[in-house]
């Protein structure tokens, strides 16, 4: 699909093997730090710049998050899909870039392309 977009360029980030063993790779692309996360073999690219105060949002703990089930009992969801900015603990869904406490705050996300076991971000 990327080949049809004429105004975007591909930037190599990592091999699929590298991402599988590291869960995320952060690359500098065109002056932007962009993290690519591997969530069960699906790849998501998110800006490593927190919309709160500019912290390195994607360098923090990658984990799940506490939520409640239908009975309002505590449970734990989204294992491996939530990154927390190490400065202030703001949680973001790496699949969408959305801040869990308020969807008004969203980290920019980017398209990811996999070609011959190589992972690219398109800008």
């Amino acid at each position, binding site marked *: 699909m990327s080949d049809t977009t004429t105004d975007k360029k591909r930037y190599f980030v990592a091999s699929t093997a590298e991402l599988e063993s590291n869960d995320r790779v952060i690359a500098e692309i065109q002056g932007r730090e962009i993290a690519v996360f591997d969530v069960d073999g699906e790849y998501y690219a998110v800006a490593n710049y927190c919309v709160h105060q500019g912290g390195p949002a994607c360098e923090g703990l990658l984990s799940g998050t506490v939520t409640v089930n239908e009975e309002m009992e505590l449970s734990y969801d989204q294992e491996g899909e939530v990154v927390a900015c190490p400065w*202030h603990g703001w949680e973001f869904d790496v699949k969408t870039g959305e801040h869990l406490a308020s969807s008004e705050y969203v980290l920019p996300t980017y398209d990811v392309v996999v070609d011959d076991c190589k992972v690219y971000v398109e800008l």
Partner: protein
Amino acid sequence: MVETSKIQRISDLDTVVDCDFHLVERQSDILPYIEEPFNKMLSRSTGDDYGYLSNLYPTPGFLTPVTTGKVQSETVRSPEDVRRGMEMLETDRSVLTPTQNLYLACVHHDELAGALAGAYNEYLLDTFIEPNEGLYGAVVVPPQKPQRGAEEIEKHGDEDGIIAAFVPSGGVHPPLGNSQYEPIYEAAESKGLPVMMHNAAGTMMKNFPQQFHGLDRYLSTHVPAHAMQHMVNLSSMITQGIPVKYPELNFIIQEAGIGWIPYFMRRFDAEYSGKREDAPMLNQQPSDYIRDQFYFTSQPLEGADDPAYIEHTLRLFDGGNNLMFSSDYPHLDFDHSDELLKMLRGKFSDEEIENIYGQTALSVYDF
């Protein structure tokens, strides 16, 4: 609306003073400085590896984002650590404040509290204070032992780089207007040092134990804790006439945000009109004392996504003269120096912005 602002970024400011930069003092830092008999009592070679010194400061047992690893705070145990933080924050001078000793008022042994304050002050001076590099500090006083606090102020108050006295005000009992604290105020005034007041959320466990237990979460405790404890202490201090008794003494109220300040001033004046007999020492409105002798530090700035709120709130307590920038680095709700500036540009004059970021601190602290 201010016409033009030359100040666009932090580097455009003359001087940036950070009024709250925390050291993260640990057992091995403090133990060598503890006086007898506590040195003999505590300097044992075996013990639990949690660091038994921290067990002397009651802890609230909060489950926080630091506990879960969602916040990864830096540690600050050397001048290099301070410099790294200051570089990130783009500040010129830091007023160094403690972390563990924010809980000093909860220590369950008054003489030990005095010894811990004394050890911290020696550690601070030995390890960090370096005015040529912008590293300044405050003498920590033990609220349980006001006379010892006065002695600490007298001992260190003239040392180069000591620019304030620091009362760990969270958990103090009785509140700080009580006459028992007057030796602290008297010593600070005579040394020309302002008194910093800084709470910690968990210190609620001592002075508001019922509320602390009932709240049952870190979030619900932290939201009211700082402003609530400050309001109680300021209410006590002003009603008891502390600013009247010590007219040359200034107070620096930390880490409670800004919105409560204009509220508290107006509520106090309104109440005073009908209850003046409870505060016969006052010669002017309670809010006048707050304007004249109390300064407030900026972090944690609430409403930073709402410029109209920030502008309006700061105007309501003359923030251009009474607010001073603080980061609270490296704690989990620290503010980067950019955060406030973004809200001030175009709304406040360059002079007011310079005041907030450093000029007011240069006049209030004993630099």
